[in-house]
């Protein structure tokens, strides 16, 4: 029993990690590769979830909703890039923070205007619903296993894109010197629009996939945003590998912390106090881990350009 619980929690940690990676993948693409702090990433995540919920409700098919989430988020990303973001590449981080902070407000209130304040309904497709037994574990939700699969695929695909293709090289070149890559004949503006749309599509995908497990409502993107930042900063900005490792570290620490800390404290404190104190510590845990990592590795675990 104990062993099976431990095993299940490990798997939960892994799964949470992959889920976080999904959320962070688009961010690390935009942030690391284009050097842009995009606080509106969470909003694009929300766009994906909303698009999926609305379209799934209208058509009755989660899968069409999923496709819609990709399209809508990519389109929203491309529009935002075209109207706003492309004026910000040469600015310092501060201007980017403010502009994308403004975008959060616009997206959130805009979404409320259109969809109202109540949470939307989005459920897991029948194909993936229910739980299956795994070796050592009584039952594990199929959908969560599917998320692990999708996360791994996205990680691999992104890695190939960035480090193995010419497109990836150009994007990275643009990060180090935009003017120069343009002077060599590469249409970096369009390229960046494409990358931004891609990053947004990933955010939208995450929103739709994770939205089916969580509450689809205005403001759902904000906690995700912070977590995603924590993940990519621990891993080292701009590194897909770093984001993956960071996500796994955060996922495991958070899950195991939530589970173990109260039990450990329970050995010395009364149950109710131990639960509360343990939970407080667990809530702080990922930030503590992040501070520790950065204190010793100021550029994250896998700094992209070292």
């Amino acid at each position: 029993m104990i062993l099976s619980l431990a095993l299940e929690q490990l798997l939960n940690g892994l799964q949470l990690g992959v889920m976080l990676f999904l959320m962070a993948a688009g961010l690390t693409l935009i942030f690391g590769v284009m050097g842009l702090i995009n606080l509106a990433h969470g909003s694009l995540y929300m766009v994906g979830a909303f698009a999926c919920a609305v379209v799934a409700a209208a058509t009755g098919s989660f899968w069409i909703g999923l496709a819609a989430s990709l399209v809508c988020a990519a389109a929203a990303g491309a529009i935002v890039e075209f109207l706003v973001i492309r004026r910000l590449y040469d600015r310092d981080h501060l201007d980017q923070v403010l502009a994308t902070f403004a975008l959060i407000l616009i997206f959130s209130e805009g979404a409320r205007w259109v969809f109202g304040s109540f949470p939307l309904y989005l459920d897991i497709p029948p194909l993936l619903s229910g739980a299956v037994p795994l070796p050592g574990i009584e039952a594990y939700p199929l959908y969560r296993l599917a998320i692990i699969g999708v996360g791994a695929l996205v990680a691999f695909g992104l890695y190939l894109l960035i480090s193995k293709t010419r497109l990836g090289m150009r994007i990275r070149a643009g990060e180090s010197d935009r003017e120069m890559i343009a002077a060599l004949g590469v249409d970096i503006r369009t390229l960046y629009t494409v990358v931004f749309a891609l990053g947004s599509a990933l955010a939208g995908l995450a929103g739709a996939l994770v939205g089916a497990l969580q509450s689809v409502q205005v403001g759902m993107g904000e906690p995700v945003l912070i977590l995603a930042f924590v993940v990519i900063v621990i891993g080292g900005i701009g590194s897909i590998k770093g984001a993956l490792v960071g996500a796994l570290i955060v996922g495991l620490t958070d899950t195991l912390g939530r589970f173990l800390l109260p039990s450990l404290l329970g050995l010395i404190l009364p149950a109710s106090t131990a639960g509360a104190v343990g939970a407080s510590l667990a809530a702080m845990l990922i930030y503590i881990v992040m501070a520790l990592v950065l204190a010793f590795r100021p550029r994250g675990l896998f700094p992209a350009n070292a």
Partner: protein
Amino acid sequence: EPIKIGLITTLSGGGAGLGVDTRDGFMLAIKQSGNKDITVITEDDAQKPELAVQIADKMIQSDQVDILTGIVWSNLLMAVAPSANAQGKFYVSTNAAPAALAGAKCNPLYFNAAYQNDNLHEAMGEYANKDYKKIFIMAPNYPAGKDSLTGFKRYYKGELAAEVYTKVGQADYAAEIAQIRASGADAVFAFLPGGMGISFMKQYAQSGVKTPIMGPGFSFSQDVLPAIGDAALGVKASGQWVKDLDNEANKKFVPAFQKEYGRLPSLYAVQAYDAAQLILSAASKASVKDTKAFGEAMQAADIQSPRGKFKFNTNLHPIQDIYVTEVVKEDGLLTNKTVSKIFTDHGDAYAKDCKM
């Protein structure tokens, strides 16, 4: 004689759904009364305490309101109500009811038209005694969460499988669900308001764990049920109001609300509706400038509440009946149905500390 009411509630941000229901319930009562002397000024607090304070200041200082109301969240209420009372203004709570204001810090100008925060949890504790021996209880790690589990334990006599506090705003519950599976509990009591509850219920339904779930009514009230979907079916919850309660006032209220706003009312709407009714009834008897008389008129609670019986305790919190409900599907719509009455004329545990 004119009365100015300041309605501060959450109309933007993640918790806006509750605020919208609060506002709509309140305005419905005002509209039905046809009372032209009453002006209501509504403002959005965006769920930020500082902003709520600023708006309250503005309403008191510039708009010169007589009564404040509408706040959904305990932390915002704590920021606004005591200081409003200190400035001689009435505060009528439509939802938030922190223990602090029900006990030693009670105030003759502070009325609560909803409940005391612990009430619904206490009811579930009492209900659990009937069928279950070993219960897994869980709530977010903040004062309202702790109050909730304390309230539950106040009445629950059986064994606790575990007492778990989750992170505020947590979205993933896989770890807790695994613990539930391993704990061998025969039921789960979860207090997870808003988005947290939606996430938990959806994930729980997927997990293959079959242990029955129960919780306080507002976790399964009409505003969140559609988002949870069928995962909520069969959940037991407690509430001082249920849509199908059999009384005259309720039979008028539900269709009226539906007609006006095109959706089913939630608990928040009812509470706000009653708050408005309380103010209206007092206004017909006394001048709001005469705080003593007006307060006494309020305390008389001469209203027809959709909850049925309604009266005030010595600490100006309600004494009311509390029911257990079950989530069912009616005409393809998820809603709550009354199962049984669990408390009759229930007050709260803090009234004894209130010396007014």
